[in-house]
């Protein structure tokens, strides 16, 4: 027919349309964003109260506690990544759009990080202060948390896409993702601990950066395949 008087959206249009839509949706339904954030803040701020005011002990435990809380908070929010789209039929429209599906999967992951990961990174310094961390340590933690949560959003999307049609997919999703998340946790915690003791910590940061790049390049393709399978 008359394809001449119509404009095809560019790849960037597709990416930004999804990111903008999801961020707008989160803005209108702030509970979805605030629940994991509250979980993170409450869990990690209860530890200093339970452990006591011993600064040495707090400094020792701090990185691990903050990282575990961040990991669990991200896992909590992953389940809903594709669920809303699946239930209202938007996912079918994504699958049937002429835009490449890995690009749309990447957009969903990026939106998830903006909504779920970035707020964690933003409040993390407040938590760090309650663990008596130094400014240098906080810098290392922000860097590793940013890279780590971004990797988790990308890798978690694979699991979320696979478990979409399942009724109680949440536990299975966590099981699927944990093996991929454990390296992030180990390197993230160790890097912050090294920074806390004043040692060189760049190796861990480089590893997390590489891991994140790997996730950015490969995870969207795996997510796209998983979405097609679970929508059959």
């Amino acid at each position: 027919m008359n394809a001449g008087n119509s404009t095809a959206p560019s790849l960037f249009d597709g990416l930004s349309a999804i990111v903008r839509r999801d961020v707008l949706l989160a803005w209108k339904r702030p509970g979805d964003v605030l629940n994991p954030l509250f979980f993170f803040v409450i869990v990690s701020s209860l530890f200093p109260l339970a452990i006591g005011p011993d600064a040495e002990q707090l400094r020792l435990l701090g990185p691990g506690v903050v990282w575990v809380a961040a990991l669990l908070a991200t896992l909590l929010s992953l389940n809903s990544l594709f669920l809303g789209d699946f239930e209202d039929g938007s996912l079918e429209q994504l699958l049937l759009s002429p835009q490449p599906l890995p690009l749309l999967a990447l957009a969903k992951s990026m939106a998830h990080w903006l909504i779920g990961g970035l707020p964690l990174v933003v409040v993390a310094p407040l938590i760090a202060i309650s663990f008596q961390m130094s400014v240098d340590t906080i810098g290392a933690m922000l860097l590793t948390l940013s890279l780590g949560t971004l990797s988790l959003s990308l890798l978690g999307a694979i699991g979320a896409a696979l478990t979409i049609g399942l009724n109680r997919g949440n536990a299975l999703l966590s099981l699927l993702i944990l093996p991929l998340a454990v390296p992030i946790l180990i390197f993230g915690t160790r890097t912050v601990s090294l920074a806390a003791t004043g040692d060189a910590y760049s190796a861990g940061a480089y590893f997390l950066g590489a891991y994140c790049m790997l996730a950015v390049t490969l995870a969207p393709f795996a997510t796209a395949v998983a979405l097609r399978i679970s929508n059959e």
Partner: protein
Amino acid sequence: MSSPGKSCIPAQRLAGRDLGLIRGERVLFRDLNFDLAAGQLLLIEGPNGSGKTSLLRVIVGLVQPQDGTITWRGADIAKQRQAYHDELVWLGHRLGFKGDLTVAENLRAEAGLRRMSAAPDLPVFEQLGIAALTGLPFRVLSAGQQRRVALARLLRVKAVLWLMDEPFTNLDAGGQALVTKLLQAHLAGGGTAVVATHHELNIDASVQRIRLI
């Protein structure tokens, strides 16, 4: 079917060959064939649970059939997914709009995904009777109004192939007449459509029927 018996490859658009789909223990259909050209409508009929939606999902490419292939302009759709999707618009049972976003926000998000008509949207909204609703959250609209908003997708996306699953659901008499009119205009303009419905469709076009049992 202007020239039966004579193969007309250029005009042929959508074709299904020896399609078969088994779900669980049940054979939903087997050895199904159809051949659609420009201006033709494929009507999928049958009672509830007979596999109308499943067949539609096979045709659109969401589900892989156990047997057979779907071809679009002579090539297997699995091998040209993006080109095929660029020419179709899908109106499923679930409409694909976000309840918490307004109608306008929903439609704007959609513009990033598909090739949209360059024509202004307002006449489309007026034709569908939704011009006054664009500022409201999609969630608060009645089921029939939501359907009408979804029809805007058909008019804004200049697609050659329309695939519709029960398009008359929730619509009042005026809305049903509107769907028929839109379909009629689409077919008359050289479009192709596949519609699954248990409604009677009074349309003046070349119609092929598949009856599922």
